């Protein structure tokens, strides 16, 4: 389906309709704004409820007869399990500070994409069934019947939130729409209401260890290609190992880094770095996914998918785990894993074997981010770098939502960029660091059928980039998230064509001077290095 041209798409009307928001049902489910329904087979693989063939455009979503009861029971259960949910249902004052912080509202103007109103879709049901005033006064107290149409509306907007938490930063009470979306999606999954782009990868990940469903020999083959390409560019033959017992470190990345074009270059950069260091580490074909699409279905599924990493670390008897460049993987790793699986007594407190640095900030969870690891290497002068090899690239950096607002890793990537590149320009202050804008495709929304939604949601990010593109000639956007690497390219192709997206360790791999390397004439992509164009 063709989406409107950028100049059409950017005509956005922020004026809300005359009709009150409770009176606009049924919701118009617009093409280009939603993902296809999840397949029965995917649900069966992981034992999710109500597997069946259904389509969003059908009137009948084939719900269990007692669907309403299931949702209300689900709400009740979660109110008792999550203080965040109970509190966020009660204390919103509707000040509207969050309204124009959401990338979907900015890029689309749909009032129900104001985080406050998206949350009110669920809150109104909460009030109707769980508060005295809502039970008695109904609509007057902001309560709303849970009807089939209200449920469809909830589904539609629960998949127009990327859980980026930008609104939460600005909320005077810290109300986190991500938390509300997470719960809303859990409730919807109780009825088998999900999307194929999420439940497919979940099923894959459960069975094969990664979202893409890559089997062990395929992963090995992919790496063989990396090895060949790296040798062609550098003359160095790296020798990654897999599922190797007794390695010091287990290294886990999002599986996009095995497959996605830009992700592959990031992996190649990482392979070079870890080879140069002589690090005693292993990949795993079983724990072959750091990302966790389970997080976009239910808390339990998120945990089920991630258990394998710790089981694998135990089986291989590694000392600690290192994780690659990924966004939600790090939100989950940083804020959830230790609670799910801790204490990690079978692992050791991570120490960099190269610099001796103790990673105090992860002494309990024993999981180091590769960006932390590399920043520490550079700080200790352990890497020989030639930043001029990246001189063709005028770079800006996109902070991933999750590492910014669910972690706070802001300086480390900038420190690395400043050491491996000579031309770095920040995008405007209101669009980076903790205020960064989502790529518009996070939380499992990076499908193709919802491209209009993604282009709209990515408008604030693309627009900030265009600013530095015009001002400083920035031609490269670097990032530390697999979804970003996949999603920012089509986003910028649409809004600001001709831009290269790179992972951070691709830039590291380019700049790294290796022992015994041949004269480097190309970067990892095979493009000529500056000054070597004639070769």
């Amino acid at each position, binding site marked *: 389906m063709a989406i409107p041209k950028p100049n059409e798409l950017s005509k956005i009307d922020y004026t809300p309709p005359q009709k009150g928001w409770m009176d606009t049902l049924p919701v118009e489910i617009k093409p280009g704004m939603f993902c296809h329904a999840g397949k029965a087979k995917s649900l069966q693989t992981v034992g999710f409820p109500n597997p069946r063939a259904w389509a969003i455009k059908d009137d009948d979503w084939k719900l269990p007869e007692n669907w309403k009861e299931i949702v209300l029971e689900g709400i009740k259960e979660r109110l008792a*399990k999550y*203080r965040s949910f109970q509190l966020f249902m009660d204390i919103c004052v*509707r000040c509207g500070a969050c309204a124009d912080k959401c990338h979907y509202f900015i890029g689309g103007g749909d009032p129900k994409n104001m985080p406050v109103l998206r949350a009110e879709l669920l809150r109104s049901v909460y009030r109707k069934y769980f508060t005295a005033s809502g039970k008695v006064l109904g609509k007057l107290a902001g309560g709303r019947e849970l009807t089939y149409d209200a449920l469809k509306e909830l589904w539609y907007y629960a998949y127009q939130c990327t859980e980026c938490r930008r609104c939460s930063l*600005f909320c005077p009470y*810290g109300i986190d729409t991500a938390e509300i979306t997470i719960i809303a999606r859990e409730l919807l999954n109780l009825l088998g209401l999900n999307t194929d782009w999420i439940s497919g990868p979940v099923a894959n990940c459960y069975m094969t260890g990664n979202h893409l469903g890559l089997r062990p020999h395929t992963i090995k083959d992919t790496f063989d290609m990396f090895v060949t390409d790296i040798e062609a560019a550098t003359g160095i033959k790296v020798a990654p190992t897999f599922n190797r017992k007794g390695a010091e470190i287990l290294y886990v990345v999002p599986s996009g880094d095995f497959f996605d074009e830009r992700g592959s270059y990031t992996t190649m950069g990482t392979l070079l770095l870890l080879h140069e260091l002589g690090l005693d580490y292993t990949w795993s074909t079983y724990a072959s996914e750091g990302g966790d699409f389970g997080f976009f279905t239910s808390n339990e599924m998120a945990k089920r998918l991630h258990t394998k990493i710790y089981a694998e670390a135990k089986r291989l008897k590694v000392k600690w785990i290192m994780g690659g460049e990924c966004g939600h993987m790090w939100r989950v790793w940083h*804020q959830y894993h230790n609670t799910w699986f801790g204490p990690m007594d079978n692992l050791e407190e991570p120490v960099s074997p190269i610099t001796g640095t103790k990673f105090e900030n992860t*002494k309990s969870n024993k999981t180091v981010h590769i960006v932390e690891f590399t920043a520490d290497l550079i700080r200790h002068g352990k890497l020989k770098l030639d930043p001029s090899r990246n001189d063709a690239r005028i770079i800006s950096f996109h902070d991933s939502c999750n590492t910014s607002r669910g972690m706070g890793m802001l300086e480390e990537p900038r420190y690395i960029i400043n050491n491996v590149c000579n031309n770095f320009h920040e995008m405007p202050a209101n669009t980076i660091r903790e205020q960064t804008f989502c790529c518009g495709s996070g939380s499992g929304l990076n499908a193709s059928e919802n491209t209009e939604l993604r282009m709209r949601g990515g*408008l604030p990010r693309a*627009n900030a980039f265009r600013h530095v593109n015009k001002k400083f000639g920035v031609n490269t956007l670097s990032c530390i998230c697999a979804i970003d690497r996949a999603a920012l390219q089509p986003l910028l192709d649409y809004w600001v064509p001709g831009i290269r997206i790179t992972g951070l360790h691709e830039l590291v791999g380019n700049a790294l001077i290796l022992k015994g390397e041949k004269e480097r004439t190309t970067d990892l992509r095979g493009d000529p290095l500056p000054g070597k164009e004639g070769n």
Partner: protein
Amino acid sequence: MNFGLSFWVSVFIVAALILLALVGVEGAKMHSLFGVIVPYAAFLVFGIGVIARVLKWGRSPVPFRIPTTGGQEYSLPWIKTNKYDNPSTTFGVIVRMALEVFAFRSLFRNTKVELREGPQLAYGSSKWLWIGSLAFHYSFLIVLLRHLRFFTEPQPFFVTIIESLDGFLQIGAPVLYLTGIALLGGVTYLLIRRISIPQVRYISLAADYFPLVLILCIGVTGILMRYFYKVDIVGIKTLTLGLAHLNPKVPEGIGVLFYIHLFLVSVLFAYFPFSKLTHMAGVFLSPTRNLANNNRMKMHVNPWNYPVKMHTYEEYEDENRDVMIEAGLPVDKKE
């Protein structure tokens, strides 16, 4: 619910409340009801209601450590940490919460987006909501503290200090209190803002207009009593001191305006625990603000954590052994 209905229902209810007090006191002479019973009842409902609400929140556990991080985390020793927007220690959390509660830190960040031709998005600083909210909340607090003079004898020293600071302009007799004006100004701003900004109007419920209209009327009746239609201040103090000492007396001749004021305040107190006004207590419990960002350093315990079904390595190897052996990958069982 559209704007007209939500707003006018709120105005109508407050008007009815005023009328109720007026008729009850002037017509039915129910001074004791409006002067003693309703205030006591309202105070009880407020106290018990807020405690019950906080206990209810407290009963739900905090399964995960999910702070929204607003700056650089604690990581490598040479990287400067933003200790208060992204605290890793309890002290940092206390400062973060203090900034949130006393200075509305998050609201201070507020920006306003503007879409220009191009398209070009611009983000302007937008501090009006922050200023208006601060003016409203702080003046309300000071007005409340000033009212302690009605419930204490002699009045505490800090009330005297507040009074003299509040009236330092020395305009008029009785002296004009700045916070009275600021409170009315603040609440009026919040109301006008709610009505005039289309998006905010669109999200507003009756539950948003009602407290604003109520507080506006409380402020207006208070100011009318103090500066315009004088009431029997000695009589009022007899009544309020009696209330405070659980020995209520209802003197004759206090103007009806006082009873209306007191009734509206009672309604506000009684309404408080059942409404969004509980954000006052709730903000302290917000898990995105009151937790340290240190889950990789210190395990956060989820009381309902439970083991989950997983796809084990053994199953995985069983399904893939052939291709693993063929690809030269290590396996635990050869067949």
